[in-house]
């Protein structure tokens, strides 16, 4: 018998989901750029459509390259399985649609990505699912927001852009007390720095566009599920009652611990059509191979950059990162000084993304969070003068040189 071994994180970042291709022996994961798959027989086709067999039908539902990425993410997060999507927001929307329908309710952290505030607060609300936004560090406020029809508690491991780290263990205990899952967006921390499932989370989401891909080459998202949540507890009829979307199948009865993952793919992804492309999954697989190495350098550079900013008189405040390499600081002189600072940078890229190998900078109040009022901005942990940095992998002396020049350039005109 083969001896058993629990392989380490870096080993799994390289190998999980990608044994040698059985057909060709290809050591690199092949890019299966195909839309559909020939059935072995009419019998096998029927088995696949009835969800009685395993195999690929059509790349909107599954694809071998995407499946390899999904399995690697599930392995790194310590989950039962994963489903990949076209973007992080698609993964998030499909998580909502896997659990909730019109008349249901969600509770979300209030200091989250601006796109999440609009997805939950506007688009999902229009579908008849209401969201209450709460400060998640206040457990009494979270508890007070929970209702009988609440289907999930949503937080970001590290709030974007506030940098506040959520108390995941306490939030998981509270969610489970109410019989609902804790859903955690782990994009900013990555599974290298934090594995929410080990802290009690039930579903983990990522924008794979960020550190997972790591090179700013593709957009993608993924959900990972623990397999530990009791979906048959009576609060999730979408999973435990006969499904009109799939031959009246009862997902909890047929798939046991896989019920959520199977429904998320076979019904929600199938009907929404927001699948990850094989090319984007392939790029993300390559990105994941170096995740541990990149995160070490991201952290070291971020620490040095934050320390430098704290020494500068032009800087009003620095919210040094508690976890990860994305953080905010304020330039003295408010909104206009912030703009002059960004315009004076040479090496840092001014764009709306994070987690690239290259260093990035943005002014959230006028971009990612521009849909929010001043009051909503403050709730989300954003000041008008906040500048958000995503510290990359360059020589840190070069990053500091560029910041120093731009801070001088941001000084008010004489």
């Amino acid at each position, binding site marked *: 018998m083969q001896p*058993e071994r629990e392989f380490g994180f870096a080993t799994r970042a390289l190998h999980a989901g990608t044994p040698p291709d059985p057909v060709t022996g290809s050591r690199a994961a092949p890019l299966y750029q195909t839309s559909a798959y020939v059935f072995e027989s009419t019998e096998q086709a029927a088995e696949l459509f009835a969800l*009685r067999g395993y195999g690929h039908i059509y790349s909107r539902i599954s694809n071998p390259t995407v*499946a390899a990425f999904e399995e690697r993410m599930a392995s790194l997060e310590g989950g039962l399985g994963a489903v990949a999507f076209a973007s992080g927001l698609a993964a998030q929307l499909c998580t909502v649609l896997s659990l909730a329908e019109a008349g249901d309710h969600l509770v979300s952290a209030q200091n989250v990505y601006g796109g999440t505030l609009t997805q939950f607060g506007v688009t999902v609300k229009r579908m008849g699912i209401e969201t209450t936004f709460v400060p998640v560090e206040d457990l009494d406020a979270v508890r007070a927001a929970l209702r009988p029809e609440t289907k999930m508690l949503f937080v970001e491991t590290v709030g974007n852009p506030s940098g506040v780290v959520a108390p995941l263990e306490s939030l998981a205990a509270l969610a489970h007390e109410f019989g609902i899952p804790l859903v955690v967006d782990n994009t900013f921390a990555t599974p290298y720095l934090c594995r929410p499932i080990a802290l009690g989370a039930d579903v983990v989401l990522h924008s794979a566009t960020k550190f997972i891909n790591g090179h700013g080459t593709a957009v993608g998202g993924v959900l990972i599920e623990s397999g530990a949540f009791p979906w048959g507890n009576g609060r999730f009829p979408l999973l435990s009652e006969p499904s009109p979307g799939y031959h009246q199948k009862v997902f909890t009865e047929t798939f*046991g611990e896989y019920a959520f993952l199977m429904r998320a793919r076979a019904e929600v992804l199938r009907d929404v059509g927001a699948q990850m492309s094989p090319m984007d999954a392939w790029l993300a697989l390559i990105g994941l191979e170096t995740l541990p190495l990149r995160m070490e350098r991201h952290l070291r550079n971020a620490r040095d950059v934050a320390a430098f900013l704290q020494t500068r008189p032009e800087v009003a405040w620095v919210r040094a990162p508690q976890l990860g390499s994305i953080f905010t600081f304020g330039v003295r002189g408010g909104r206009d000084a912030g703009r002059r600072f960004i315009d004076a940078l040479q090496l840092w890229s001014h764009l709306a993304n994070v987690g690239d190998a290259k260093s990035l900078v943005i002014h959230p109040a006028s971009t990612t969070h521009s849909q929010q009022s001043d009051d909503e901005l403050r709730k989300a942990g954003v000041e008008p003068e906040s500048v958000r940095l995503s510290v990359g992998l360059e020589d840190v002396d070069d990053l500091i040189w560029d910041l120093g020049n731009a801070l001088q350039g941001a000084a008010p005109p004489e």
Partner: protein
Amino acid sequence: MILESPAQLRALLEAARTVAIVGASSNPLRPSYTVLSYLRTRSPYDVVAINPALTQIDGLAAYPSLAAYATQRGAPDLVDVFRKPGELVAVVADAIAAGARAIWFQYGVVNPEAIARADEAGLSVVVDRCVKVEYARLHGGLATAGLNSGLITSRRARLDLS
């Protein structure tokens, strides 16, 4: 012995040749039909259905009881159970009498007394898992669905392309 580790489950599934599915249904919506259909079409096992109300499922012979099966065909390697928890003590007694080497209780098919009796009788016991899922884990099926197989290897799988 109660089997839990991937290596234990692998050893059980690799050693088994005959699988008797107690409570097999002919209704395609039932989980037992899903498992029977999957094992019959994708695995090398000799699969039989145990159900007193049926004579066959999709042309596959059904036996009224484990005793009837054992009388005609000998002891089954693995008894896979889809029955209500209240009936499981009796199912375990039948499995022991039929000479089964292992008993597998599917998702939600759980009765502590039945588990203990099977364990004490020396059977290999698997609880609250699915034969289909664990077979697929070993043979690449789970990986097609983005599920964590737990398999890490740089050995090339054998594939006959001749």
